[in-house]
């Protein structure tokens, strides 16, 4: 992974965390036994996390002052669309913060959730170009949705009054199990693809970061949630670290077609 991609690791994980927080808040509002929270606090956390993520994303630009121009090519560029929708998502979170603290209207939560989900999809499309055959598909979107689904309930558990409600524990446990299965199976499927896809599979499987991500970011947290039926206060930190490791693997170990020119494809 080159230095340009480290800010993208931080940006993608944090912005997906913000989407996850909004979705988990929505769950808390409408689930039968949802968590009791002061809705303004997770909303504020989502806004702050997304703001930090967007600031981090500027660091990957050679010329950050030109970032405002990045919405010029909405016709074909998924990056332009991603920038626009993520900015709209941030605007909703920031402008809606006073309203969310006072009245907590449901429509605002739905609006933010819709913008967040669209930003996840656009982000997934941005990182699935033809040059990376292993992820030139829906996988980036699946990975990003999983990150939001893991970190959303985990971070919202910090804002819950009293003990962690079972619905949050159940959602986190289920998503962790699903993510563990997907992250273990996907590199194995790549091994039956073309040369670049195969090499990507071996690169992931041979990467210590990948196994750290599997063990620390998915298996261990799953075991903790399973055993304790709770989300300990330290667990979200471990999950964030795991997602950052996983994203570093995504950016550093997924191989480009140009690396194999002159060889078999």
């Amino acid at each position: 992974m080159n230095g340009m991609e480290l800010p993208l690791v931080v940006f993608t994980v944090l912005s997906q965390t913000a989407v996850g927080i909004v979705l988990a808040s929505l769950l808390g509002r409408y689930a039968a036994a949802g968590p009791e929270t002061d809705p303004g606090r997770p909303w504020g956390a989502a806004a702050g996390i997304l703001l930090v993520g967007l600031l981090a994303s500027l660091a990957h630009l050679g010329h950050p002052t030109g970032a405002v121009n990045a919405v010029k090519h909405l016709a074909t560029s998924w990056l332009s669309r991603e920038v626009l929708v993520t900015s709209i998502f941030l605007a909703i979170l920031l402008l809606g913060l006073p309203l969310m603290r006072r009245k907590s209207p449901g429509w605002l939560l739905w609006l933010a959730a819709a913008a967040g989900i669209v930003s996840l999809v656009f982000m997934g499309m941005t990182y699935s170009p033809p040059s990376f055959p292993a992820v030139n598909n829906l996988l980036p979107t699946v990975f990003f949705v999983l990150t939001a689904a893991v970190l959303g309930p985990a971070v919202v558990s910090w804002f819950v009054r009293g003990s962690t409600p079972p619905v949050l524990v159940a959602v986190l446990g289920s998503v962790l199990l699903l993510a563990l299965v997907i992250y273990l199976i996907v590199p194995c499927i790549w091994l039956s693809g073309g040369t670049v896809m195969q090499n990507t599979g071996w690169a992931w499987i041979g990467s210590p970061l990948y196994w750290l991500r599997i063990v620390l970011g998915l298996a261990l947290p799953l075991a903790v949630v399973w055993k304790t039926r709770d989300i300990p206060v330290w667990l979200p930190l471990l999950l964030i670290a795991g997602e950052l490791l996983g994203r570093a693997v995504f950016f550093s170990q997924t191989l480009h077609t140009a690396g194999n020119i002159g060889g078999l494809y």
Partner: protein
Amino acid sequence: MRSQTAFYIDVQRCIGCFTCAMACKNQYHQIPGVIWRQVYPLSPEIYPYRERAFYSLACNHCQRPTCLEVCPVKAYFKRDQDGIVVHEQEACIGCGNCIRACPYGAPRYNPEQRKAEKCSFCWQRIDAGLLPACVLSCPTEALQMVDLASLDRPGLVQYPPGFPRFPELNPSVRFRLPSLPTVVKREDI
């Protein structure tokens, strides 16, 4: 078909001398590590002979360039008159999206300017009636500039082994494949 300027690579003639890559470097003085034209040796899996074969590659000036499509600031455009894909460095913000997206690795990151850059097909030279530096320098005429609209040579391929196949991009490059090396046996002498 509209005019589309393209590189014609005669792999049979190419001797892997890197003169094309050096001519490009002499013309544009790219900083170390930034390479617009690269000469790739074919792996033994594709060309299993003691003789070697090479692809001299730069930007393929695709009919549907992914660099142009993914660029968020419209720093790329395709010239109407000849289909050359031009990168406008003044507009580039150095996001690296084109570098990630091009399956042929044509755009490169210039860490000094903190912007992307790539082969321009020497469009300024072409407009002045000159050949691109790489084409002009090739000592074996293995690298040529052609117009796909009028190209009529038999036996050319667009996707030879060892070259990524992306029909949706339709790269403007044609190859003449290397022939098998001549084996001279004792009884032939």
